[in-house]
């Protein structure tokens, strides 16, 4: 780690990632990616168990009337950390929820998206999509002429009626390791070195991101 001579520019680089660090990475990826990334259910479960355990320990220590000032102090620090972890968990889930609602009808119609969502998320996406369609029908569409009622028209030069992830959107990507070459839209190849930062359309690095070779920053 960081003790080697010159000022360490990249601390916490060699160390193994903890679950919390992994979640923070997934949180940032999710925030920056235009598409919905595979859900991290196992990781979330592990972290939430840990949070629960820490909270229980805090409760136990608190119940003890003869705890010293030093104990109070540790309790306060442990609680602070619990709140920090909860914040990241909450923000991660809300980010996904936002995308799920935005793309609900696309998700409902696209089986490949299903495996990236948890059971609860998928259920929500489908119900939300149904709800929106029902609402559109009830409020407006049913009073329109038959041929204008469709929610799936493909009008030339107009955006699709089913919003879907814009994979052309550029993202800032940071290589976590030397990456396999990818093809850029101008036809040339891009081979990212470890630590390299690039701005490039999302679809170019999508596979690298799913393989955890890069992260979004």
């Amino acid at each position: 780690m960081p003790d080697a001579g010159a000022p360490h520019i990249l601390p916490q680089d060699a160390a193994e990632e903890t679950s919390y660090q992994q979640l923070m990475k997934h949180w940032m990826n999710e925030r920056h990616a235009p598409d919905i990334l595979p859900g991290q259910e196992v990781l979330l479960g592990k972290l939430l168990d840990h949070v629960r355990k820490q909270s229980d320990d805090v409760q136990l220590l608190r119940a003890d009337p003869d705890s010293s000032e030093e104990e109070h102090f540790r309790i306060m620090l442990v609680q602070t950390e619990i709140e920090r972890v909860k914040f990241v968990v909450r923000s991660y889930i809300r980010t996904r929820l936002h995308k799920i609602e935005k793309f609900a009808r696309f998700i409902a119609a696209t089986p490949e998206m299903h495996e990236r969502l948890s059971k609860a998320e998928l259920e929500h996406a489908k119900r939300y999509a149904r709800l929106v369609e029902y609402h559109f029908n009830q409020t407006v569409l049913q009073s329109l002429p038959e041929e204008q009622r469709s929610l799936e028209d493909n009008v030339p030069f107009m955006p699709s009626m089913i919003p879907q992830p814009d994979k052309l959107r550029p993202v800032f990507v940071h290589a976590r390791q030397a990456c396999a070459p990818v093809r850029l839209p101008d036809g040339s190849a891009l081979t990212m070195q470890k630590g390299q930062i690039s701005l490039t359309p999302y679809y170019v690095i999508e596979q690298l991101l799913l393989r955890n070779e890069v992260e979004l920053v």
Partner: protein
Amino acid sequence: MALPAPLRASVTPTELELIASEQLVEIVPLVAMERTAFISGAYGPLRPPSKCKVPIWMATNLKLKKKCRIVPPDWLNVEFLEERLVQETTGESFSEMPFRFAEVAKVLIDTAPDDFPNPDKIRSLLKDIREARQAKSREGLSKLDHSELSLPNLCSMEINEIRPFFIRAMGVLIDIIKDAQPQQDIA
């Protein structure tokens, strides 16, 4: 809404500070504490006056209660920053800085100015470095095309600053190319 509108386009500087605050910093504790298991790992034991490494959030927490002194990281001092400023103003490329230097420097200097030998000088150097680098990222915009822009040594806070504009600009270039060659399937 699930995610408030201001958070959708980008992350906020405070969120970046939250992430940066997981990095470790050395402190000189003024109180003793047993080794304690946290979610991000076990820290301690704190035994004054020996140094100990803890996450920045913990260091600032202790500092605010006057229970530790923070040992400045070895890149956060006048000499190092002066040297970087020279590199920054003479060289064309971005000089190498810790990826989250802006966040770490702000959090540490704001909570513990008395632990730095010359906090005002450090602040003004950081500001100069920031400005020199900002000018360079603006120049980088002229190299923008529709496929890829490499940004060596750019730091987290700087990326966040240029993000909305660069993404929008590249998006426009992508649209132009897409419309120019519709027969080619680029997605």
